[in-house]
């Protein structure tokens, strides 16, 4: 088990390094750099900036150095000081801009993950055990719909229904009276009462996918000989189903985090734009539109990092759950 954990950790560090590099490439991808923006802004105001000042700016931001040096300087700042760079559009440090928003994004994504699990597994198991029943067909049909409706579409429809029939905006995470208040119990309850709509909206696609996977997995397991053995032993039907095939089919419970979490974060990003939630989505969109690359890059970096950590935790949980994985690295 220790070997397994060590391997996963090493792999995680390598992944994170790769992510940070790709991020930096993306940051540097647009033609021109910060000075281009400064010059453009100055020209828009009808001013002219002397070349010496531009060179000074370049030196100040290290833009005259080779790419790899720039990357190392940047990543050093990120790792050692949590310095993610400067948002040009906001003229603030990126870290101060995104802290709370990323936190709320994670809360929303993890809540959606729990929602997906809580809904998808019972339905998937039911569908498999009652294959070809009315409930199974209903679940499959809803699953297909869930996969076909884009998250933002669902968000829009929810907003429309809320606006049209309840005369209120379902957007946002806080009621106006709590929006700027300090954290207290009231604010937390207020958050929870607002949170369920985006959670459901973000979770629908993942739920649909997971229902299908759980159902297919369980159907594969149901007719395996070890189930017949358990039945031959005289176990009551529901008890043996839960102990054997269902347990076997629950491995995806953990292994799905790897693909579910990135999907949920993607969904969260777009849904929060539609519902104007104070999470990373709207700020990221704004940053993308104004080519505020350090801000964009930081979001990519942080969201990816959190996803990779989440995936690793789920791998460890899977090893705990499934002895075949746990013992794989024992012998060597």
């Amino acid at each position, binding site marked *: 088990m220790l070997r397994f954990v060590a391997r996963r950790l090493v792999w995680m560090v390598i*992944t994170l390094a790769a992510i940070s590099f790709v991020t930096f490439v993306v940051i540097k991808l*647009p033609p021109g750099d910060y000075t281009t923006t400064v010059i453009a802004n100055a020209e828009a105001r009808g001013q002219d900036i002397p070349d010496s000042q531009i060179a000074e700016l370049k030196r100040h931001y290290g833009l005259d150095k080779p790419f790899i040096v720039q990357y190392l300087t940047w990543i050093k700042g990120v790792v050692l000081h949590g310095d993610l760079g400067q948002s040009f559009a906001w003229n603030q440090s990126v870290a101060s801009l995104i802290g709370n928003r990323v936190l709320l994004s994670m809360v929303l994504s993890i809540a959606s993950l729990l929602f997906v699990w809580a809904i998808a597994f019972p339905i998937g198991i039911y569908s498999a055990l009652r294959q070809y029943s009315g409930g199974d067909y209903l679940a499959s049909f809803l699953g297909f*719909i869930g996969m*076909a409706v884009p998250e933002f*579409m669902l968000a829009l429809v929810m907003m*429309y229904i809320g606006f049209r029939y309840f005369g209120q905006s379902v957007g946002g995470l806080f009621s106006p009276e709590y929006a700027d208040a300090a954290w207290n119990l009231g604010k937390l309850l207020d958050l929870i009462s607002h949170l369920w709509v985006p959670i459901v909206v973000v979770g629908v696609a993942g739920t649909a996918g997971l229902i299908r996977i759980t159902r297919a997995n369980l159907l594969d397991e149901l007719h395996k000989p070890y189930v017949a053995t358990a039945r031959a032993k005289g176990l009551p039907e529901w008890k043996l189903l839960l102990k054997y095939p269902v347990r076997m089919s629950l491995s995806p419970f953990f292994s799905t985090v790897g693909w579910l979490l990135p999907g949920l*974060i993607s969904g969260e990003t777009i849904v929060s734009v*539609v519902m104007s939630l104070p999470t990373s989505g709207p700020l990221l*969109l704004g940053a993308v539109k104004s080519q505020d690359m350090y801000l964009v890059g930081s979001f990519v970096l942080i969201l990816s990092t959190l996803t990779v950590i989440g*995936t690793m935790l789920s791998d460890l949980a899977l090893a705990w759950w499934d002895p075949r994985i746990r013992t794989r690295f024992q012998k060597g």
Partner: protein
Amino acid sequence: MVQQTEAIAPDTQHETPQEVVKSLRDHGALPQWRLMWRQFRRHRLALIGLIVLIPIYFMAIFAGFFAPSSADTAHTALPYAPPQRVHVSAEHGMFVYGYSSTRNQETFEQTFTVDKSKIVDVGWFVRGDEYSILGPIKSNIHLIGPTKAGEAFFLVGSDQSGRDLLSRLIHGARVSLSIGLVGVFASFLLGMLIGGISGYVGGRVDNIIQRIIEFIMSVPTLPLWMALSAALPGSWGPLTRYFAITVILSLIGWTGLARDVRGRFLSLREEDFVMAARLDGVGRTGIIFGHMVPSFASHIIASISMAVPRMILAETSLSFLGLGLQPPAVSWGVLLEGAQNIRAVATAPWLLTPGLAVVVVVLAMNFVGDGLRDAADPYK
């Protein structure tokens, strides 16, 4: 007395249905594509999906003809006009009622009512905006439209600039439906190549490629797409942008296909018929393209068909955020961008119809993909 321990008869019980099918196939009794079609036909939802998709694609190809007007013809006086109903009477034939608008003096909100005094005659095969069919051929015949060119004719309502949403929907289908195919083709090439190498060469190369795929899959796609599209210069024209977006989508979309291809290669490598070909002295390329690829082509087609709707959803999402295609290009995502404002949607819910189109198409494609997968693997 019997002494030996030998099986008494060939083991027919363990002959799986796959093997039966395979032997039929080998005897040329049923070619694979016919088997697939037979299986596909049994999947009722898949058949319905196909029946829905074919006319939609047909309409997209001949968008100019099917759309009552061009995508950009605007009736600036009629923003957010509600859908009209086609009436038929002995006196007028086919017609719609016109609009009369009133402006609320306090909120400056414009409201439309059906004005029964204004009658707009509607006919089949009418002349209207000029368009080109498949490139050079020009025409101005439209399947349906107002007989007097230029009259307002909004079967599903109009948008904020008074453009006919139905026409824009039909024109937008061209981009939305084609980007899925083009994007999947690009990721198919990448996935096939990289997955093939990974699966065929195996060993260390395979290991490295798998780690890279895992890495790409672990990154949340939407933020990455957004970041990449942020790097696109704003000065690019619609066509360049179209291809750039396709490239961005397929750069991330190839991983799933590569995994599929690799898995197939890995399992096929050990198959007897591949070994037999190798012993026969067939070269590497010969084995890959003459023996291995044909035997999993059906699976690949199935996975591709599942990837197309994902691409469409991706383009729609990006364009909806204003990061994909930009006006004046029309795609369903671009149309939906107009629905971002919830107040606009509340007064003009028909702005959501492009979303409905996306859902219908993606649903149909998923059904077809499901059917293809079952057909490729009839006993699984």
